[in-house]
Structure formats: C-alpha cells, structure tokens
C-alpha cells in the first residue's frame, strides 16, 4: 500500500499512531472482568469524595454498532473533573479533584453501568461527563460526552453542544430513568449515530 510520509521539523515530534485495543483488552485493562487471577491491582475508579454535597447518580447504557447489534467487547472510560473552589462548609479543600470510571460492556448484552456524582457546572459549560470508548474494530478511541436532560438552559449555552448541529444534539443528552438514574446509549454508526469529538 502507498503511504504518505510526514517529516517532523526539528524538536517537533508526532503523536504515536493509535491502534485498536482488540478483543482481548480485558486482560490488560479490566482483568477482574474475565476472572484473571489477581496478581496485580486494577486501577481503581476514582469516585465521589465522601462528603461531597451532590447527588449520587447511576448511569447505564448500551453500545450499538452499525448493524444495530450490541457491542459486547468495548471498554469505556468516563471523566469528570471538578475544578476550582468548593464552598468552605463542605469541608473539601479548594483545588482540583477528579472522578474517573472505567467499565467494560457486558459479554452477553453490551450493557454497562456505573455510579458517580452529579457533575458540576463550571464557567459556561453545562454539567457533562466525558466518555472515551475503545474496542475491537475501533482504530482510535472515540471521545463523546453526556449531558443531562433537565439542564435545558445550561445546555443551550454550552459551547460544546453549540458546536453540534441542532438535529444531532439529542444524541449527547441522556434519558432520565427514575429519580437518580440516566441512560446514555452510544451508537457507533448509522441512524442516530452518536456525535464523536476531535478533542
């Protein structure tokens, strides 16, 4: 196959090329999910500080491919930083803390779920959770993000949502399930394809 060649300028390197995580990603990224004897630690999900004054929520979803089949061998990471000041009476020091979750989709049905805190608003960014998805057949990880249906006003001002065509914004907005649950399905291809970002 013919290839282009890009020459880096002096002192300028290029990002290492991405490759698919393949079908066996669980070995390295989620060994407990396949019952690999625990010789090491899995990186822990970094979750709500105990005394954080926000609601704990559950997020569930399914990953779908272009044939409307569930994707049963994907890994998702969710990321929500909380930047800046926290009110003094919450007992949390100001600065930066973090919530990071890693889930693999269920081998039988492609479902995933995790619990987290309701994300905060900052600046003119509406509350959101960033997702990064890898799997067999995905050559470079896909970035997307989830917004909350009840934040109509904040969502309307959010610069990221505003960079998306109006008719596709609904793919980034979760559906409420019960009082503190949300469903966020990710469609890789075709009808109702989720918006993915070049971040």
């Amino acid at each position, binding site marked *: 196959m013919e290839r282009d*060649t890009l020459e880096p300028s002096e002192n300028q390197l290029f990002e290492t090329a991405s490759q698919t995580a393949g079908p066996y990603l669980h070995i*390295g990224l989620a060994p407990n999910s396949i019952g690999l004897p625990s010789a090491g630690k899995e990186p822990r999900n970094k979750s709500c500080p105990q005394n954080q004054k926000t609601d704990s929520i559950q997020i569930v979803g399914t990953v779908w491919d272009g044939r409307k089949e569930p994707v049963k061998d994907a890994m998702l990471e969710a990321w929500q930083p909380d930047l800046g000041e926290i009110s003094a009476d919450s007992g949390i020091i100001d600065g930066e803390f973090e919530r990071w979750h890693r889930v693999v989709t269920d081998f039988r049905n492609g479902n995933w779920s995790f619990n987290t805190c309701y994300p905060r608003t900052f600046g003119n960014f509406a509350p959101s959770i960033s997702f990064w998805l890898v799997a067999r057949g995905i050559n*470079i990880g896909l970035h997307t993000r989830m917004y909350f249906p009840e934040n109509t006003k904040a969502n309307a001002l959010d610069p990221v949502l505003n960079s998306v065509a109006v008719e596709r914004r609904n793919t980034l907005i979760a559906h409420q399930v019960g009082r503190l649950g949300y469903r966020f399905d990710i469609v890789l291809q075709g009808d109702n394809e989720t918006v993915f970002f070049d971040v």
Partner: protein
Amino acid sequence: MTVCSEVRAPSLNCRNWKRHPPAFTPQYKSTVARSPNQPLIRVRDDQVQSHGPKFNREDIFPNDWDLLTNFAAQGATALGPRILLHGQVQDENNRPVPNTLIECWQANAAGRYRHPVDTYLAPLDPNFGGCGRTLTDHDGRYRFRTVQPGPYPWPNGPNTWRPAHIHFSIFGHCFAQRLITQCYFEGDPFLPLCPIFQAIPDTNAANGLIAKLDISETMPHDTVAYRFDITLRGRNTTYFEGNSDGT
C-alpha cells in the same frame, strides 16, 4: 482561591489525523460496522478534557511491571524469549511525560491470550498472565520485563496472522492525550501482511510502532532489550506550565 472561570487550561495541538489509521478500514473487517459515518466535531479549549485522572504508586503493585513473574508461581517464570521492553514517554514538544500510567497486555510466547474468547490451539502458560502496569519515572521512562509474544491467527480472513505485538494503554496528563496502541518488533515478516498495522497511512508513523533491538540495555546471558518510545500530543507552545493564565 481558584475559581473555575480562571482555570484556563492549556489546549493541545490539533491531532494530526494523517498519523492514525482511519476509522473505516475495510481490510480490517471489524471496523466496517464500528466506524462512525459522520465526521468528528472539533472541540476547542475544552476545559474538561484538558485535565485527566492521576495515578500514583499506591495504585499499582511493585512487581506489576514484571510479566515474567507477576502471575507466576513462586520461583517460576513465564516460558519464552525473555525481553526487557523499555522506552520513554514524551510529548510532541519533546518533553518527558513523568508519572503517567502505562498498562500493557499481550499473548504468551506461543501466541495465546489468557482470555475466554481466545480459542487458538497454542497452549496457555500457567505462569503467564499477560498483564502489566507501570508508572513512568520523572524522566518519562518505563520498563517492562516479559516474554516476546508469538504471532497468532485471527478470524479477519481465511489465513490472517497478527505480527508479534504488545498492546499499550497510556494516560498522559489530560484526557485528550489518552492513547491505546500496539508495539511491534523489528524484522517481523508479518508486518507487511497485517491489515491493522497497514491501516496506518503514514510510513514514519507506522515505523514508530516498531520496537528496535537495543543491545546496550541487553543483560548478557539473561534478557534481550527492545526500545519502544511513545509520543503523546503536545500542548500549544504558548502555554507555560504553572502559569494558569498563559502569560
């Protein structure tokens, strides 16, 4: 006290998409139904993705880096050619990326993964798990001790084999630097035949995934060394660390 609107995160250089395999590469069949049809939407100065999870020494075990022994019975080691795979993680501005988590996974020396989905008839090695983790040091350096994996067949076509490779996952310091790739080995005759490797459109980018024999780090009568350096996206050079307003 820092307030949110003043946290002006440094934005990353735009991703150079010519260096990466396109999402839709039909010669790699699994991409056909898993590649988005719509173009990606560019996000600029995204404060969320300009930060990322941080890991520290307590998040891993001290021997997670040593795949020769980390799943082995006491006193045993994994079977196969003993290698030391090492390198440096840097960003596009040639600055080391310290204290970042690297995870790796691989087939054993016979080309078999310890995974319920892998049914290749090559044997499992009871002393090999195929899973490793490490944090880069203050110079961005890392090392894994392991066995050189074998090539293995996969169901992409009637007779397709993966070159020997080790999967790498790297966090970097912000979520937008997140990267998963594969490390190949110098001289592997399967490389020109592999649809996953060949999907990389740029020659230099493809060659960058090939670990080179590093005789200087080889341990005589013990372990062959290979070097595999990793570059993550860089920040705009106008940003200076520790100076959040970018001046």
